[in-house]
């Protein structure tokens, strides 16, 4: 049971570069989410997706792009990285059953932008 996996686990890059964080889930969950976690801010939602080809902005979407061509994958791209995007990024997924379902998280990607 692989669950939800993120790659890479760690990434160092430079300002202005494009970087893509990958997220893959094996549960066929409808919903997928991208969060960033920073000291003093807790978890903040960047983007989410209700199904393939359906994405929507969260609380802090500026500077990020997402796509969801397949149910199982939800990559997050920083088109031109800035130092303020240094953070730990978590991907999560949840089922859609018509009732509340918990989100399940990947192990995160620690991204440092120099």
């Amino acid at each position, binding site marked *: 049971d692989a669950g939800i996996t993120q790659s890479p686990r760690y990434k160092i890059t430079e300002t202005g570069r494009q970087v893509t964080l990958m997220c893959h889930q094996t549960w066929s969950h409808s919903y997928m989410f991208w969060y960033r976690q920073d000291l003093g801010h*807790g978890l903040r939602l960047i983007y989410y997706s209700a199904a393939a080809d359906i994405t929507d902005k969260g609380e802090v979407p500026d500077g990020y792009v997402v796509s969801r061509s397949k149910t199982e994958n939800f990559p997050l791209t920083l088109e031109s990285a800035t130092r303020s995007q240094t953070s730990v990024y978590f991907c999560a997924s949840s089922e859609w059953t018509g009732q*509340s379902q918990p989100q*399940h998280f990947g*192990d*995160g990607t620690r991204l440092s932008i120099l």
Partner: protein
Amino acid sequence: EDKVVQSPLSLVVHEGDTVTLNCSYEVTNFRSLLWYKQEKKAPTFLFMLTSSGIEKKSGRLSSILDKKELFSILNITATQTGDSAIYLCAVERDSNYQLIWGAGTKLIIKP
């Protein structure tokens, strides 16, 4: 503005103690409240609460929701060093199924 506030922000106790973590919320269109435990990596799901007054229990952990007073508590009895973690509370909104997260309570259990 919707918000979720956890208290205390940090807590240090000794093994065997009982702790109570608090989560209060002001969220329009409340749907559910969730508790997560975060050690070094991913937050892991503990409880989901949707109804007032019904205790959820798992081993030494339990949680209850009060929808009238807009808060939840997470109790941990007979604490162990493995309980050391950040405990996160989140509230789901009915309107868009997004979670509003609290800042977390950092719990340290001393042997």
